[in-house]
């Protein structure tokens, strides 16, 4: 009954719809929200949406993980390993940036008591 899901176009289409919606939910949060932590959450959502697009669209239905294990003896019929490696790299970078960002937000809050981007006025002349 669900065979139509095995067609690459449908498979990719579903992932594309979901991840693009995520991306623009993130963009909305980024533009509409004023709280620093909410902004970091929005940025993370946008990043995750991009990773999802990369992983989902580079893999076709029916491909296995590119790892030799019991029963698999050749590297054929496997998913492209590069997007997975790129995503791994990008996730770690995203984590690093978020860690630095939240630390700055915490310290800024401790010094000034402010949490919103709208109230950031220390640099006004």
């Amino acid at each position: 009954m669900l065979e139509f899901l095995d067609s690459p176009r449908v498979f990719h289409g579903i992932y594309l719809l979901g991840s693009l919606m995520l991306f623009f939910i993130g963009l909305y949060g980024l533009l509409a929200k004023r709280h620093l932590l909410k902004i970091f959450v929005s940025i993370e959502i946008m990043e995750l949406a991009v990773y999802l697009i990369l992983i989902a669209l580079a893999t076709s239905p029916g491909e296995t993980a590119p790892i030799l294990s019991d029963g698999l003896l050749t590297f054929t019929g496997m998913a492209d390993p590069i997007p997975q490696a790129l995503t791994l790299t990008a996730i770690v970078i995203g984590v690093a940036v978020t860690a630095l960002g939240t630390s700055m937000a915490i310290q800024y809050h401790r010094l000034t008591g402010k949490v919103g981007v709208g109230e950031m006025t220390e640099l006004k002349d």
Partner: protein
Amino acid sequence: MTLHFTPVWFIAVPLLLAFLSPLWVRLRLLMPILLGAHVALFALALSWIPTVRVAPLLETIVIAPPLGIHLHLDAVSLLLVALFNVAGAVVSAFLWLSHAEPHLRGRPAFILILLLIAGSSGMVLTGDIFNLYVFLEIVGVSAYALTALRRDKQALEAGLKYLIVGSVAAIFILFAIVLLYLQTGQLNLAALARDFGHIPAPMQALIGLLMLIGLAIKAELFPFNFWVPDIYRGADPEITALFSGVLVKAFLFVLFHLVFLLLADPAVARTWLMALGATTMLVAEAVALRQQDLRRMLAYSSLGQVGLITLALGFASEATTAGALFHMVNHTLIKLLLFLLTALMLRRFLSVRLADLQGLGRAMPLAAGLFVLGALAVLGLPPLSGFASKLWILKGFAEAQVFWPIALILLAALLEAGYYFRWIKVFYAPEPPVTAGQAEGDWAYTPLLLIAGLLLLLGVAPFLLEDWFVQAAKALLGRGAFLESVLGVQP
């Protein structure tokens, strides 16, 4: 076992030195090593000039391109790497020799400055687009942390703003890279350049737009540069010297490198890029007129120069490109000089607002003199180097019979004269100076005098480097040669 000097040293050596930093703290060698590394890498860059003149140097990492990552050392990347290391050396010498605050001389500052320069070199050298993203993030994270280095309210606010804007820009760039990979299956720049034409046109436009927005935010182009003056106002002037001198130049190079590579005919984007450059220049110069804080004024002035360089590079003729590269070098040197002077003034006067700097000429005659020199170099007055590079750009436009950029550049120079002389007039005002901070020793001026000497030298004898700039412009514009050197076939 042989010792290979390869371009990978520009990245591996700073990384190693940064990872070993606890050892340098224990040996109390932080500042000497920071200076020494940049001087050594600059010497290394110079030693390659004869090789690169013949053919670009390709450094394969693990597997040959287009499959793997490679570093591409040609005339233009060599020029920029050498420039970045000079800037790193000047700033570290200044930090070492002057009474810099402790936070600028500690282990975090050492790591961040070293890797900021290394990351910028990596962005310029790499021949792989995802590797470019990684270096972009190395540069980004070190820049965010450097902005917040002083850890007071203003520095933290500037750091936060920079981090948010920078990560959003990085997401756009990553999205463009992902789409490029999904469309072509390639990550190598040369292979991407070959296959970009086969992507459907609407997709090309989307990728181009995402990339342009991301890189324009990073390279501080109008209308994506609203955040820049705040960053320059909040961070330490020693750090902003690096931002204006190194970071922006690296991003500008990446932007134009991608434009010239991916688009078989750069004329497609010419109007857009030139318009972007011209508006950046005019808006920034106009706003700079009424700034009350020296750091803000210099930030807008820096944006104006970035606009000028974009305008000249966007035109993509050989003469304007060579002139723009020359101007990049000049602008880096000038802004290093001006921002480091700002640091000295800030230490002496504890404020760099226009009203507080009255009579600076009497309290710090050398600083005021060097500031005048720097201002004249920005304006492009002979015999300083700014004159030679601006003249080259103008000549390039005149040869191509395009006159509106010439008018705009001259108008911008007029505006520049307006605001720089407003500050110089205050410096030499008859009122007695009100100094609250400590005076600086003569040693702090050594790196500044060195830059001033270089500005004069390049102004009097531009022919020393003229050949190199022409070669660099050819390398930057030479899409066919780039593809041939990497892929081995003429497209």
